[in-house]
């Protein structure tokens, strides 16, 4: 893993050494499928976008691997675990490095498989097995959309190749808006499934049944961002049809708000983080939907850092407290686990978007640009989302680490082996924003320009300064609310919140029952129908077949009636036959 990171680093440096114009390299590997008119090659594509993703995958991946070595120390089958992890990274790289939608699809399904295997890694836990199945099937639904998108694409272009479909730099592919809309909406379907956006998000919270490093790597840092990557990669098509683009934005915004609210209602730390991931991804989609692709990517990068960090710290908590993860049974952890507390705080700060941490330079930058472009609704709702984000992350910190301890025994601090990568992540999370935003050469936006084009800022709405101020206020407001509600002082109030407000807490806790609704549909409608069909198959279709057999046997059973052994009956039938033949003769004459 680390090796792949080094390689990727080398590739990056080499790429940086090149002038911007020709920063797209295609490495032909082999031909995969060739049938009829279809021809699919296994070429790899190295360009700023893919290399950025590669950096994230390999970099964060390596750190999480390091962490996992410590985390999985007393698992019976570590080899299997790391095998899956590496397999995952391989598929993920295939996904981001593909120069061809079908190869991308290969990686796409591959990472899905690995997430299935890793979620269900502790297969003896029924909920883990169920969650794994749910994740695979739900994402599969999105994948079908993606596949259909590929079909349409192929029918129009006769190829899956990026250069053909997306056009080489600058040149736009010639394609009707309608077709483009169809393709991009179908692709969006895939992206929604993979990135757990509405309405296909239900698998992500359950997926937390897997080992925490998995949650960190797959369900926070990398795999779930594949959807964003897809949209950004195919932005050319999306731009051709505004419908698709705005659809992306709407989905993103909805996801951001919904995820945030749902996150507030969770007592399970990891579930809360999962919903927060969903909402962060929502911001990325929003960015992409508004056309700020570089921002989407930079948020992706930053998020990879701090969300991985947050997951891993919660992993520390689980590790230290024998998988206790319900905040109602935590509290005051900062004494037993100072490191973890600090690291979590760092992650929270980055996420909440207080300057000068990365969340600010990425997430709030999106809102800022939105307002500049005069997309007011996006700005307002987005700011609301930002507020909620600050709220829930602060909540987690207060509930888990502040106040009195609500757990028995001693929570031992994580080993240094597990801490080291976290420190790196923390630093990354905190500073990524500045680095990516300001260092002249490393400025991600410019680096990505060859692939994603330049963003020309509008100048509508209030000035940047005011916007910054507003965003800071909003964030602080969020934190304030959290402090107001969850400060150690009124601990019993929020612990007893469910008793006082059962409806609301249940609604939040169950994320507004969407999952339950699906469950009802699958169970009541789907399974009933299927059972009915199975019965139909047994009774009607097969029944008809056996019926024929029974009919024949029954007829044969009549033999004794006719073949009564009475010779005169025989003579009777004989005579009847003769009479019949003579009748034929008489008629025929």
């Amino acid at each position: 893993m680390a090796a792949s990171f080094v390689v990727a680093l080398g590739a990056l440096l080499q790429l940086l050494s090149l002038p911007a114009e020709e920063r797209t390299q295609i490495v032909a590997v082999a031909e995969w499928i060739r049938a009829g008119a279809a021809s699919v090659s296994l070429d790899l594509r190295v360009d700023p976008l893919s290399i950025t993703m590669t950096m994230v995958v390999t970099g964060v991946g390596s750190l999480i691997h390091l962490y996992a070595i410590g985390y999985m120390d007393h698992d019976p089958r570590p080899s299997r675990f790391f095998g899956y992890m590496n397999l995952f990274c391989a598929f993920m790289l295939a996904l981001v490095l593909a120069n061809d939608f079908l190869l991308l699809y290969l990686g796409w399904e591959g990472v899905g498989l690995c997430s299935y295997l890793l979620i269900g890694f502790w297969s003896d836990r029924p909920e883990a097995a169920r969650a794994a199945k749910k994740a695979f099937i739900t994402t599969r639904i999105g994948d079908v959309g993606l596949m259909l998108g590929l079909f349409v694409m192929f029918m129009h272009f006769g190829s899956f190749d990026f250069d053909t479909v997306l056009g080489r730099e600058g040149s736009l592919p010639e394609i009707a808006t309608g077709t483009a809309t169809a393709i991009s909406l179908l692709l969006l379907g895939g992206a929604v499934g993979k990135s757990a956006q509405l309405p296909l998000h239900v698998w992500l919270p359950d997926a937390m049944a897997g080992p925490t490093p998995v949650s960190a790597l797959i369900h926070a840092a990398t795999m779930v961002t594949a959807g964003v990557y897809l949209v950004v990669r195919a932005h050319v098509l999306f731009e051709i049809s505004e419908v698709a683009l705005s659809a992306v934005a709407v989905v993103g915004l909805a996801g951001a708000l919904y995820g945030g609210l749902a996150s507030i209602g969770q007592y399970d730390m990891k579930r809360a983080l999962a919903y927060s991931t969903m909402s962060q991804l929502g911001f990325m989609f929003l960015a992409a939907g508004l056309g700020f692709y570089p921002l989407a990517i930079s948020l992706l990068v930053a998020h990879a850092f701090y969300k991985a960090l947050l997951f891993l710290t919660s992993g520390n908590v689980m590790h230290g407290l024998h998988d206790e993860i319900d905040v109602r049974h935590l509290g005051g952890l900062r004494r037993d686990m100072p490191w973890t507390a600090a690291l979590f705080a760092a992650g929270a700060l980055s996420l909440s978007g207080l300057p000068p941490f990365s969340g600010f330079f990425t997430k709030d930058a999106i809102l800022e640009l939105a307002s500049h472009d005069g997309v007011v609704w996006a700005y307002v709702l987005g700011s609301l989302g930002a507020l909620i984000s600050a709220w829930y992350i602060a909540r987690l910190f207060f509930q888990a680490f502040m106040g009195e301890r609500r757990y028995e025994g001693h929570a031992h601090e994580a080993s240094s082996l597990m801490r080291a990568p976290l420190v790196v992540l923390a630093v990354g999370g905190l500073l990524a924003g500045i680095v990516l935003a300001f260092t002249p050469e490393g400025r991600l936006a410019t680096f990505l320009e060859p692939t994603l084009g330049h963003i020309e800022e509008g100048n509508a709405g209030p000035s940047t300064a005011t916007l910054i101020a507003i965003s800071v206020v909003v964030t602080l407001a969020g934190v304030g609310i959290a402090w107001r509600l969850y400060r150690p002082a009124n601990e019993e109030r929020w612990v007893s919140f469910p008793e006082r407000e059962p409806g609301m807490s249940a609604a939040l806790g169950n994320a507004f029952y969407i999952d339950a609704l699906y469950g009802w549909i699958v169970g009541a409608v789907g399974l009933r129908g299927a059972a009915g069909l199975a019965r139909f198959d047994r009774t009607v279709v097969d029944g008809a077949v056996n019926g024929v057999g029974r009919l024949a046997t029954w007829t044969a059973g009549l033999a004794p009636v006719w073949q009564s052994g009475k010779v005169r009956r025989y003579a009777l039938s004989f005579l009847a036959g003769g009479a019949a033949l003579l009748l034929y003769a008489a008629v025929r004459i």
Partner: protein
Amino acid sequence: MIDPPRVELWAILPVLILFAGALASLLGAAFSRRAEQAPFVLFTLAVITAAAASALWLWDREPATVLGGMASVDRLAVIGTLVLCGIGAYGAYLGFHYFEHDEHRRNEFYALLLFALGGMALLVAAADLIVVFLAVEVLSLSLYVLTALTFRRGPTEAAMKYFLLGAFASAFLLYGVAMSYGAAATTSIQGLARALAGTTGSQGLALVGALLLVVGLGFKVSLVPFHMWTPDVYQGAPSPVTAFMSAATKVAVFVAMMRVLFVAFGALQWDLAPAIAALAAVSMVVGSVLAIAQRDVKRMLAYSSVSQAGFILTAFVSPDRAGIAASLFYLISYSVAVVGAFGVVMLISGGIREQTGSDRFRGLARRRPVLAALLTLFLLSLAGIPPTAGFAAKVLVFGAATNAGYWPLVLIGALATVVGAFFYLRVVALMAMQEPEGDDVTDASPLPQLVLAVPALSVIVLGIVPGVIVPLLEEAGVLTW
């Protein structure tokens, strides 16, 4: 004063040999006091061999009618005779095995068998309706007695039913002869052909006559609805007799039907074909379906022989050499299979003990692998599953019928084959897929198994290379003198 007619006795040498042999063994039976019957069977086999040899000797003769147009010398007759001799030989051998466990001497069996065989040999050579009638009577009377031969209750009852209905049928047969005579003022097959081809002769009477003949002969080959004696008689008769008559009667009578329908009434082909097709269809379906319910294997085979008759008749809708060759091939493969099948059944059912209930066959593959394999093979051939002779035969007759434009009939036949497969393979399933139970009465002496291996082998050979005999049959299919 009567001028002496030309008497070409060489032309019916096989028949004469058989009748002579019959009389001889009759005298032997009358005068020998010793119960042991080996000499009889050997003598019978010798006679049959001689008859077959003489038939072969007639192969290259110029086709002609002899004895005042009463008998014919042609390859159809020769082939018919040869097949009959083969069947007869097996019948004799099986009878030998069957009766050696009987307390009484049954030496008349051989004489009667030879009489029946002679009548059949005469039937395949008959060139005049009156000879057809007489030959049928000869073989019928012999068979009535053979059926009753063991004088247990079943056999005698079977014999009585067979006789009463047989007499009933022969009345129809005779009426058919009379009508044909009325139509053409002659009963010679050639004469009828000429008269009906020309303007002389009444088509109406001829049609009635032909159909009445079909009724009479159809009774002998047990076509539905004239088949109803078949199950009772096949079940009641001693197994060797059943084996013999189920095969030989069909061969002889069907050959005679070829002459009658294709030559004598060839001119009425287009009137007759629909009736024949109807009979064939009904026979195939009814025979197959009713066989499903049978629990007694001999009875099941009896019903199956009903449906088999239908299959053979299927080829009769196309009156050309292909059709004749097809039905001949079918007759041969059927005879081989059915003789073998009844032979095995006889051994399994303990010979004269006649325990033919299907329980006897349970798990036989475990107890008697060789016999089970043999029976399986014969049943597969009867069911028409490749690579056995039955498959080739079915393809041939169906091809002939399709050629005559009767593909719906072929479809019915093919579907009847499916039903057939059901009850044939149920026996296979009993033998191979069930656990043995009850006591085993099988006659396991090795010699009969060896003898029955011959038909088994020919079932396979005919199935894989039907080409070895089909050309001969087609040569025999030329029915003009």
